[in-house]
């Protein structure tokens, strides 16, 4: 693997290998007092975040640090990015400074792919930590890791993705990744929050959450992305919560074994009722914990799996 830019195009073997590595790392670290592996000693990982993020940035930082990489965080506000420097120049600068891996989050779809294009002649690996409305592949990997942990194989499992599919990079990455692992995905949203051509996606489409919940093995609630909204996608937050929010009554429609995921940050009371978010079958904190291991696995495969200088 040269870069991780998208879940689309990853084959089942690669995904399984990444998930197995993440699982192995998790077991290795379990119960250790000092959570530090020497795997990436001497390697430099730079995160560049052009959008606010707490969990993803922290998760990548921990992933790097737990494997002894030097991790540097650049945020768009406090750097030359704020002075109007282009993404291309920032990329070339970070490469010249000696980065082995650049992890980028950017509001423009395709930004990670462009970055990889500009760095094609360098050995730098690029990881997409979320590009606009396009993809967020490590989120899909951590979701798959969490589901696999609870449900076992995803073959034939029915997974619902509910909410703002149109603006969601999490949804796009998950559709590719989960269907690649054999899951049957149903997306549930009002028509205004579904992309054009959804009928060509490998999913079933529904506008009625209550009809879908009883047959799901897992339901993934999406964040409503107010910052990408240009008005009028639904009449009000109240009506959205009534129509598509995961209330306690709705959560009760799920089969007993079913689990609930949310990529965060959650809007309690809108997408998901507060008690549902804190229920035992809601795996939000498991997702966060698995996120670190999955990102460790990604960094491992990009930086250490072949030609590693230190082990």
């Amino acid at each position, binding site marked *: 693997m040269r870069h991780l830019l998208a879940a689309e195009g990853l084959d089942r073997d690669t995904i399984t290998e990444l998930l197995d590595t993440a699982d192995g790392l998790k077991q290795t670290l379990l119960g250790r007092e000092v959570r530090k592996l020497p795997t990436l000693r001497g390697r430099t990982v730079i995160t560049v975040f052009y959008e606010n993020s707490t969990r993803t940035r922290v998760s990548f930082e921990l992933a790097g640090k737990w494997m002894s990489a030097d991790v540097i965080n650049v945020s768009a506000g406090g750097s030359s990015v704020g002075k109007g420097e*282009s*993404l291309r120049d920032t990329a070339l600068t970070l490469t010249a400074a000696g980065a082995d891996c650049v992890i980028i989050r950017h*509001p423009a*779809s395709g*930004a990670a*792919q*462009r970055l990889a294009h500009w760095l094609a002649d360098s050995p730098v690996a690029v990881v997409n930590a979320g590009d606009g409305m*396009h993809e967020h592949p490590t989120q899909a990997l951590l979701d798959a890791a969490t589901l696999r942990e609870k449900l076992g194989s995803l073959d034939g499992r029915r997974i619902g993705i509910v909410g703002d599919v149109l603006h969601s*990079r999490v949804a796009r990455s998950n559709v590719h990744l989960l269907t690649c692992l054999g899951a049957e995905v149903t997306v549930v949203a009002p028509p205004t929050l579904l992309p054009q*051509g959804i009928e060509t996606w490998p999913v079933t489409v529904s506008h009625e959450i209550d009809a879908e919940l009883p047959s799901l093995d897992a339901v993934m609630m999406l964040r409503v992305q107010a910052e990408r909204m240009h008005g009028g996608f639904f009449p009000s937050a109240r009506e959205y919560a009534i129509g598509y929010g995961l209330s306690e009554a709705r959560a009760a429609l799920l089969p007993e074994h079913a689990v609930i995921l949310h990529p965060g940050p959650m809007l309690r009371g809108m997408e998901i009722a507060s008690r549902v978010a804190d229920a035992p079958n809601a795996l939000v904190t498991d997702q966060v914990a698995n996120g670190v291991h999955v990102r460790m696995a990604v960094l491992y495969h990009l930086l250490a799996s072949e030609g590693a200088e230190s082990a």
Partner: protein
Amino acid sequence: MPDRSSQPVLLKGVRRYGEGEPVDVLAADGVIAEIAPDITPPDGAEVIDADGQVLLPGFVDLHTHLREPGREDTETVATGSAAAALGGYTAVFAMANTDPVADNAVIVEHVHRAGQAAGLVDVHPVGAVTVGLNGEKLAELGTMAESAARVRMFSDDGLCVHDPLIMRRALEYSRALGAVIAQHAEEPRLTVGAQAHEGTQAARLGLSGWPASAEESIVARDCILAAHAAARLHICHVSTSGTVDVLRWAKERGTQVSAEVTPHHLLLTDDRLETYDPVNKVNPPLRTGADAKTLREALAEGVVDCVATDHAPHAEQDKDCEWQAARPGMLGLQTALSIVAETMVRPGLLTWRDVARVMSERPAEIARLADQGRPIAEGEPASLTLVDPEARWTVRGAEFASIAANTPYEGMELPARVTTTLLRGRVTARDGRIR
């Protein structure tokens, strides 16, 4: 350099409109002096051995961006004129979205004079419809029409005249000026933040959609308004199948509407967005293969009247960036003929005589240019383009006369090439060189 302005030019062995036996065409004193099977070169004449190449009336482009004033780092009237001459053009219309905007007599006269100074192609400034292109208040259309630039086409291109009342008034008012309003049809409320044609490709790539309906709804509205105002309307860069349907309907009911299609909308589709390379970003966006097919058929049929380039130079930093940050637009003047040959002539949709219609005669009629798009006959203006239909060449943006190099056709091998362009009897471009 010798003064060639009055030098006769003898074209040996041309096939007019690609038809019939080769003949010789002598241009002297700005007009076609003689057409005969074998003309003896007059003293001092420049002789061009055409060897059976296709002779067409000089091309007329209703839609170019010459970027002067304001962005002379990407194109000037002079460099754009050179690109036009090399592309076989003898007249171009320079859009008004310069900085400052061409919404007054001073700016349009500046562009007009710069065109005359370059002397390679007739540069006709397009005047803005509204002050500052802001869509709120009519610009002084009459003053621009009466100026030395004699403006006869008005457009807010780049932006849509979206207010229906302003559009109605512009159409009505232009009637007295003998002018045409050229509309960039894009309902702004339907394209907030839009990045790519709204369809499966944009949805997959996570690019905000630019629905076909944003174009079609404005075209339909304006055809109705033009009919009501008994005014002339021209639709810029038609890009969707639905627009073709609306145009067909409007023309059948007698509306005075004309329309242009760009070479890139004839050839390229949103499949190219895969790489997120903004060289493919353009307004209106590249549409689907089905749209491109419909546009080719509509051009052949005449529902779409002509080809216009929407030549849009942009600086490298405005194109070699992330998709969302990039400016829309692509170079077109030096590739237009080849793209038309590739998409229309080779598949048999147009003959070379039809190419004369869609690249010269119809645009000249739409803009009411008396001395362009004329027949190739004795006594007519010698504004002519010689095309080698058998040529094949590889596109290199850096080799274009434009300052900018943003071509989506980089590295592509294309058929047919302009070998010589004459403007009123004077050679302006020959074998890839400007005169």
